[in-house]
């Protein structure tokens, strides 16, 4: 089971066991991670599951899709290089230990 580590604005870490194939957003919602909402249900249309992926995982996670890229521009307060919509990241064994920061305004 891949592990995902969610880091809050205050630095608190929450490590969660994820199901292979499930999204980083769905994993957070199931486990009550604060600040990840997923209003639209994981369809890259609401931008309420924004996270900053830590640098060391960026190349593994890959580039955002087109619609995701638009939403990161339009709906996200502080877009950075690691900005992704967590509904568009699928948990896999290769991503074990994936660490993401949850933006403070979502908490």
């Amino acid at each position, binding site marked *: 089971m891949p592990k995902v580590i969610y880091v809050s604005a205050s630095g608190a870490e929450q490590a969660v066991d994820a199901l292979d194939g499930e999204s980083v957003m769905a994993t957070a919602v199931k486990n009550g991670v604060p600040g990840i909402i997923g209003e*639209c249900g994981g369809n890259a249309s609401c931008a309420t599951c924004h996270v900053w992926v830590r640098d060391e995982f960026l190349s593994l996670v890959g580039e955002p899709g087109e*619609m995701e890229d638009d939403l990161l*521009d*339009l*709906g996200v*307060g502080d877009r950075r290089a690691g900005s992704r919509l967590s509904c568009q990241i699928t948990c896999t064994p290769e991503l074990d230990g994936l660490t993401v920061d949850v933006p403070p305004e979502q908490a």
Partner: protein
Amino acid sequence: MLRREINELLTQTGPGTPMGELFRQYWFPACLAEELPEDGAPPVRLKLLGERMVAFRDSYGRYGLIDEFCAHRGASLWFGRNEDGGLRCPYHGWKYDTTGQCTEVPSEADNSSFAENVKLTAYPLVKIGDILWTYMGDPAKQPPLPEYEFALVPPEQTYTSKRWQQSNWLQAFEGGIDSSHVTFLHSGGLKSDPLFKGAKGNQYNLNDTKPFFEVADSDGGLFVGARRNAEEGQYYWRITPWVMPNFTMVPPRGDHPIHGHFWVPIDDENCWAYSFDYHPVRALTPEERQAMIDGHGVHSKNIPGTYRPVANMDNDYLMNREKQKSGEWYSGVEGIAIQDSSLQESMGPIVDRTKERLVPADSGIIKARQKLRKAALALRDHGTTPPGVDPKHHHVRSAAVVLPQAEAFLDAAREDVTVRPGMPVSSV
């Protein structure tokens, strides 16, 4: 949700704003040709993109759109006398031609050159079809005239109306590319409106309330495809073109005339909704034209002598709870146009998009906002000419087609969404 500063960017169109400058790259409707019906007709007051202007047609038939206010002491030229080749301020007799040039200041000596140095802001005003079009940008960058099919077909094949909407242009426009509301808000009209009813496609519309949306880029903007289930192995696609910044078309129904809109900012809290209907290969029938005049289809019944709808926010849009309950009018408001305007105005003059919750069915709206934002910033930062300025980008049509499930909608329907003069629209 939309960030506050982007909401402001997209909704503010006054002089000097990024979106205001974007709008000033395009020809768009200033008023209807019927508002200046003959040479020397009374001038018309207009506010466009926050600028107050008067439109007039001089005694020689020349059209002009000039600053509303006399350069002398600021009186409104709406009171002007439309006299021999110009508009004369009735206060002290200063006179202007259609280019805004002052031609006479009666108090000055006969040999004075004072008037030569007085010129009001003026924009071109050109009649194409039923519309007087203007371009409010830099004269050096004035693009070729627009080539929208509805304005180019013979007069007997086209009809355009307009109505005042008490909301920002963007929330009005967003309704124009949002096909998913049709199944609900306009469900009554699909069954009964003389300009909609009877088409086979209506059944697909009513039977499948969960359309899937796909959005594809076009040269001038977007094609928004709404996919619903049809017969086995097939999808019913309703394809809505958007040409930047403010032209949208509604997918057709059967052999009914095809319709669409221009959404023109008056100021940040008001807009004009222009609604047109045309048929590319035949005259509108007398019954169709009468239905349009009567406010059916996408048109509205306006207070006589004005462009304000009879049903408006001051009378709660003549809400009828009995018809709401029976489902004859799903929202209780009569007519497609007012069903839309009532809800869009109810959001407030400029809806706070930081609080909205978008769903996948809103993907057209998301893509359109992003395209507007990028175009406005590219223009501001690099002077980039935006999509939709080139008249070739205007040669689009909406379509309503049944396609095999395996095919990508735009690949399969490329011809259907392109103007083919003399050919009917693709519509079921």
